[in-house]
């Protein structure tokens, strides 16, 4: 167990390093860096530009820049934002907290997929099962951000006609009143949009897992020895069909973050996606690298935790 853990941690660090190297190279070798933007400004003389270049450290060769950046990261110094001048860690942290609200809300709502999947499997082939399957296929084909747009349009039309504002049209809180209730009210639509892909993935996965387990010999044995159907379901079917769910949690993280960018963008939620898009337009390298680093760490950590948790809940999995 200990050796496995050490090996996985070393692997994860190498993985993180590789991801950062690739991101760094992609970002810095692509044409149109921050200086290009400055050069388009007629008030900027070439001397000012080269001064700025020197101040931002962009005049040094790429490998030197990368080593400096990595050395900073090791000391938890992620540099300062080019445009805002503030430390990256402060800006990214604030945005990350805001995104965390959405992630949390989305994941909790997403767990709804589990009972849906179990229900569909237990009623296999019946009308309700077919309805759920059709619905998941249809919902999978709809871009969720577009669904969000439609909801916003409907809500705003409703507000214009009926005078009742069912949901806020964006933002994180009503200006001037940042209460928990108000925050939750603002979270309903975005968390639901984030949750949709979870609900679909979970309900499908759980359904097929449950169907597989239901036909196993030990379930038949349990029934044959007279165990109550409820107990069979809880102790034998649910237990074994939900374990593999842990493995897909880690794999869903990248798409979760992708979804958050879109949802934040349509609902102007001041999270990491919004920050990233602004920074991308301004070519703010330190912020961009900081966010990619942060997300990669989360993804790698998620996968590592999923692996470990799998071993804890499933005694058949051995680490060696």
């Amino acid at each position, binding site marked *: 167990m200990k050796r496995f853990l050490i090996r996985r941690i070393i692997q994860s660090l190498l993985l993180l390093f590789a991801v950062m190297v690739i991101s760094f190279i992609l970002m810095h070798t692509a*044409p149109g860096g921050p200086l290009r933007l400055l050069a388009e400004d007629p008030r900027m003389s070439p001397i000012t530009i080269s001064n700025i270049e020197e101040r931002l450290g962009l005049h040094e060769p790429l490998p030197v820049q990368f080593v400096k950046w990595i050395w900073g990261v090791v000391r938890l110094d992620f540099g300062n934002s080019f445009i805002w001048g503030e430390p990256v860690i402060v800006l990214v942290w604030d945005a990350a907290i805001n995104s965390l609200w959405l992630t949390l809300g989305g994941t909790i709502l997403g767990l709804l997929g589990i009972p849906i999947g179990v229900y569909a499997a237990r009623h296999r082939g019946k009308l309700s099962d077919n309805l759920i399957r059709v619905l998941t296929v249809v919902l999978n084909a709809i871009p969720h951000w577009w669904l969000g*747009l439609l909801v916003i349009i409907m809500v705003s039309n409703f507000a214009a006609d009926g005078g009742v504002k069912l949901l806020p049209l964006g933002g994180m809180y009503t200006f001037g009143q940042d209460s928990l209730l108000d925050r939750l009210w603002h979270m309903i639509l975005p968390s639901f949009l984030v949750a949709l892909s979870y609900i679909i993935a979970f309900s499908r996965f759980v359904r097929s897992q449950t169907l597989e387990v239901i036909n196993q010999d030990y379930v038949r044995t349990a029934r044959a020895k007279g165990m109550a159907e409820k107990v069979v379901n809880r102790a034998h079917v649910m237990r074994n069909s939900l374990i593999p769910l842990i493995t897909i949690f880690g794999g869903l993280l990248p798409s979760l973050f992708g979804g958050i960018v879109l949802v934040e963008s349509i609902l102007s939620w001041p999270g990491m996606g919004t920050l990233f898009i602004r920074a991308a337009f301004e070519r703010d390298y330190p912020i961009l690298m900081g966010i990619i680093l942060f997300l990669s760490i989360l993804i790698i950590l998620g996968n590592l935790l999923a692996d470990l948790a799998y071993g804890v809940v499933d005694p058949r999995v051995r680490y060696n």
Partner: protein
Amino acid sequence: MSQTGVELDLPPLQTNHPSKRPKKSSRGFWRSSIDRFMQDRVSVIALVVFLILCVTIFCAPLVSQIFFRGQEPNKGNLFDSFKPPSEEHVLGTDKTGRDVAVRLLYAGQISLAIGFTVAAISLSLGVLLGLVAGFFGGIWDDAINALVQIMLTIPTLFILILLSVLILPEWWSLAIVLGLLGWMGVTRQVRGLVLSLRNLDYVDAARVMGASNWRIMYVHILPNVVSIVLVVAGFDLAGAILSEASLSFLGFGVRPPTASWGNMLNNALEFYSKAPLQVIMPGLMIFITLLCIFLIADGLRDAFDPRLRDR
């Protein structure tokens, strides 16, 4: 000619010979798969709709000539902006007076072209790497697995945003980038399959007869992988179309004035109270396209492996 008459009189000697038994229902894998696919009504309808969609979209100039008075997607009359749907403009016009219906068609060209290119790139790359990893094993397998791990860890949408800000992509460069970022699923599937195939007896037999590695891979293993790859290709195609739409919607990706479903949505967003149809239609096109592709892919999967039905 008289000989035939003589033969006809003879008793049919050879019919009892096992190899000359009348063949009836031994259809090949592809034949029976196609038959199964054709029996699934939903899949067939999806296929037909998708084909009609593709033909209409790729013949957009012709369709525009016939139904929309030959209007062009990027030419509009500013005096005609935000016209409601009428006989002249079936779905109305946008901010600069361009016909929305015509733009939808041309936008489809970009979206579908990106989708197909991405699927082609990620398939060829994915199949090649998966074959090599599964077949040769050892250091190849480790290297390719490491690469897959790295690529899966990269937050894709973020990298895409970054690249499209910096490179200002044409549709084909966007497709190449999407393809290079999306082959990992295929590789994993193919690798797993090849691992189970390479130890089968007929592979050993081929090797005993002196077949080279590449011949074994190409002649004996690849055909067994094709069916799964086709299904994954469907999901890749859908994923690529969705990625392009999301990216263009965010204001990255395909640049205006070239229309794509995503950037049409982006343009329409400011005016949703004035022209809600322009927010609805591009999304509806994406939805219909994706739904057809998903249904076809599902149908293919069930046809190739009937045991998977109801899963």
